[in-house]
């Protein structure tokens, strides 16, 4: 009886909740209409979005380009993963881009994009992104929206606190998540403490051509390095890294890495590092890492294995690194647009800890230390603390800024974005996220001058937000208008892969630089042809090179004979078009690779190894023109002992 009554009460309770819930839901819809959320995200046909958003694909290994506020997807830029649609990592030209010291790797976990800056302002020249798993940093050229450089990082593992740029893109900076034996060696895992080390990599960027070079690394204690941000303004010259596992545990980190009440934010003085290098204090250390560069003239990538890195040891070089105690395994480590405040998002905490750069400098000058870790001074928590945002939510993860004195923090556990004021630390507004939000992004939020119109929340879970598609449902981002005092949820939109983090920029900065075609006369591909008269087929033993062209609406040549079973046939195909948005594709029956998708003026190559005699067709895979369906050809394959000479033709009956 008692049980029944309890049951009834519980049921009634639930009923009340659901009943009222439904009422308010319809009210919510009225509210959205009342506020014109739909109008705010509607970009009429033919109109442009205000912002580009570059959203990393997480485990997809790629980066996608969206428009804001519409949430429309424009392009998936292949970075670390093979992409059959664009032949990335399939054609002969881009295979070297995915080369590493471990050989060819067709995938990585892409996390944190960051756009290049000049004087602390987004210049829109390049966007950088890190590969977590096999540590790499990639650079995407924002005139072609293609990946043009990938550099591997030695002495790093789980390249997570990456890839963030300094104010003038002097460096792209990358910190290791996992500490490992440096150099790698065969030792018991239990000997972690003291033997495993972290490394922070500083990759210089040539201001002229964007060329990257691993300038130096800093050897750090064996903590986990989670996220990072550069100083700006007064704190330019410093870089801040959040750490966890200062316990140096090697197993069951969920328990063992949460024993210390505080971990650290490591403040690294990279200008000091440059001084030490000038003084010859860096040590050259053997290493092995790939440096892959794509050339827009040859349309071809080269991969070089490098064998040395310059190392600075933080334990031996005073003034290089200081440790700022920060509660509860901080994840996000974010610097406000003025460069004064460094926000630590302690992910197991309910509070946000904000450090002051000025107070940090004062404490360093006063030599007011609270001990040291492996020779690195630890500052006193109270000496560097600017303020605490108290009980702001559960599980703070990442903070960005609107440039108007407000900060926006995501809370994973309580699944919300919280707006608070810098300086007073008061919470101004909170809005729920659907669901379990990770990073957020305000276009320009990592710079001195954020564009404070929108914040994009990137969620880890969607559950019931979209039409279901079996156990795997779409990933999603949510757009909020932050122009008013209160945030307003405008839009949910699906994303490609996990929308781990993003970078955004005003559209007009990029669109004027976007390339339309590759100029044919500038094509330096060794197998390029500039007109149909140059087409030919050349045999070198069992290797055959086909110098082929494509233009609306035929291939030249389109009939080839004299190919034999066992040959390695390379189709080097040049798109002779010089018109905007006229790519052509090509695919050969039985070729063990993807199609090619070739832009005007570009040359790409695929390999075909015919296994059977016969006459085999190829065709254009991109609907290029009214006569697209006529764009096709044949290759005659004879037996391996055939003596039929090579011949090729177009339009000969």
């Amino acid at each position, binding site marked *: 009886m*008692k*049980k029944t*009554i*309890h*049951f009834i*009460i*519980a049921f*009634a*309770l*639930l009923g*009340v*909740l*659901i009943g*009222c*819930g*439904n*009422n*308010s*839901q319809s*009210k*919510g819809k009225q*509210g959205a209409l009342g506020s014109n959320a739909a109008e705010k995200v509607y970009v009429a046909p033919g109109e442009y979005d205000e912002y580009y958003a570059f959203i990393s694909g997480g485990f997809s290994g790629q980066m996608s380009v969206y428009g804001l506020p519409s949430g429309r997807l424009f392009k998936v830029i292949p970075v670390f993963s093979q992409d059959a649609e664009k032949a990335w990592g399939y054609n002969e030209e881009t295979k070297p881009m995915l080369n590493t010291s471990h050989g060819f790797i067709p995938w990585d976990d892409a996390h944190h994009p960051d756009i290049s800056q000049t004087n602390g302002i987004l210049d829109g020249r390049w966007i950088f992104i890190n590969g977590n798993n096999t540590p790499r940093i990639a650079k995407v050229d924002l005139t072609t929206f293609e990946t043009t450089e990938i550099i591997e990082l030695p002495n790093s593992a789980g390249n997570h606190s990456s890839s963030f740029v300094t104010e003038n893109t002097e460096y792209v900076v990358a910190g290791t998540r996992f500490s490992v034996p440096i150099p790698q060696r065969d030792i018991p895992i239990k000997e972690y403490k003291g033997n495993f080390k972290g490394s922070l990599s500083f990759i210089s960027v040539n201001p002229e051509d964007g060329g990257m070079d691993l300038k130096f690394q800093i050897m750090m204690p064996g903590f986990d390095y989670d996220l990072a941000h550069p100083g700006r303004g007064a704190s330019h010259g410093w870089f801040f890294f959040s750490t966890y596992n200062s316990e140096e545990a090697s197993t069951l980190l*969920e*328990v063992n890495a*949460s024993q210390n*009440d505080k971990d650290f934010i490591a403040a690294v003085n990279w200008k000091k590092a440059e001084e030490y290098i000038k003084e010859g204090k860096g040590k050259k250390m053997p290493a092995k890492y790939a440096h892959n560069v794509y050339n827009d003239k040859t349309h071809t990538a080269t991969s070089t294995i490098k064998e040395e890195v310059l190392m600075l040891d933080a334990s031996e070089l005073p003034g290089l690194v200081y440790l700022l105690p920060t509660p*509860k395994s901080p994840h996000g480590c974010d610097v406000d647009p003025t460069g004064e405040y460094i926000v630590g998002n302690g992910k*197991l*905490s*309910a*509070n946000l800890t904000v450090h002051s750069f000025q107070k940090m400098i004062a404490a360093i000058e006063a030599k007011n230390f609270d001990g040291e870790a492996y020779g690195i001074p630890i500052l006193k928590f109270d000496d560097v603390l600017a303020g605490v945002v108290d*009980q702001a939510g*559960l*599980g703070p993860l990442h903070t960005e800024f609107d440039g108007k004195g407000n900060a926006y923090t995501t809370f*994973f*556990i*309580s*699944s*919300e974005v919280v707006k608070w004021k810098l300086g007073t630390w*008061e*919470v*101004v*507004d*909170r*809005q*729920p996220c*659907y*669901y*379990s939000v990770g990073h957020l992004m305000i276009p320009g939020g990592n710079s001195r001058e954020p564009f404070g119109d929108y914040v994009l929340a990137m969620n*880890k*879970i969607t*559950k*019931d937000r979209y039409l279901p598609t079996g156990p795997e449902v779409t990933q999603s981002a949510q757009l909020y208008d932050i122009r008013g005092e209160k945030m307003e*949820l405008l839009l949910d939109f699906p994303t490609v892969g996990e929308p781990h983090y993003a970078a955004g920029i005003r559209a007009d900065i990029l669109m004027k630089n976007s390339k339309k075609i590759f100029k044919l006369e500038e094509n330096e591909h060794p197998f390029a042809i500039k007109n149909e008269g140059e087409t030919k087929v050349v045999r070198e033993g069992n290797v055959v090179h086909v110098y082929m062209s494509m233009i609306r609406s035929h291939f030249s040549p389109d009939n080839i004979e004299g190919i034999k079973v066992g040959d390695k046939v390379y189709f080097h195909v040049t798109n002779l078009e010089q018109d905007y948005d006229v790519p052509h594709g090509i695919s050969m029956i039985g070729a063990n690779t993807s199609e090619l998708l070739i832009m005007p003026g570009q040359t790409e190559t695929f390999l075909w190894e015919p296994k059977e005699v016969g006459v085999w067709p190829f065709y254009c895979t991109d609907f290029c023109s009214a006569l697209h369906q006529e764009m096709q050809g044949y290759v005659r394959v004879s037996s391996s002992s055939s003596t039929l000479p090579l011949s090729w033709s177009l339009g000969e009956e």
Partner: protein
Amino acid sequence: MKLLFKFTFVLLGFLAILSCKNNSPTAAENTNPENLSEKSSTKVQGQAFLKDDEATANVLDIAIGSPDHTTLVAAVQAAQLENALVNAGPLMVFAPTNEAFSKLPEGTVENLLKPENKEQLAFILKHHVTPGKYDKEFLKKFKTLGQASNENVIVEVKGEDVYIGGAKIIASIPAGNGIVHVVDAVILPNN
């Protein structure tokens, strides 16, 4: 026990008022940060209101389904913490029974359930939640746990029993997004 019934009914009535409060147009215009989460959207949407008959019950489902935890569930709803309890977590909830609540000095629960004490109630409830998922045996490895309230609680082992902040674990129910440990006392924060 009778008293508890009465109490629950009072609570029910109260809740009915509270949850329907959003219908009044003034609620949405409330600008007090403490009441911000009372906006209609936070109240009715979110994973807590998602029906799912295939996946393992989450910690909130378990609490709602338990006849011994009606007070706790009422408190969670009054503090509007439902959506936090259905998150991916993992979450470890120390769930005081109705009896545990009734051991508090008379009037305490009623007082906490008043709208003006919502923050305090939320704080106390968060003191019963740990990010993590550990069974009773495994909890013996810990000396303290860091709670969602931002305070630590002490873990003590007495014979076969495990005490969290002085409250004894009397049963444990694994959940889809964590684990519920039923405890015989309310764990009060220092603060």
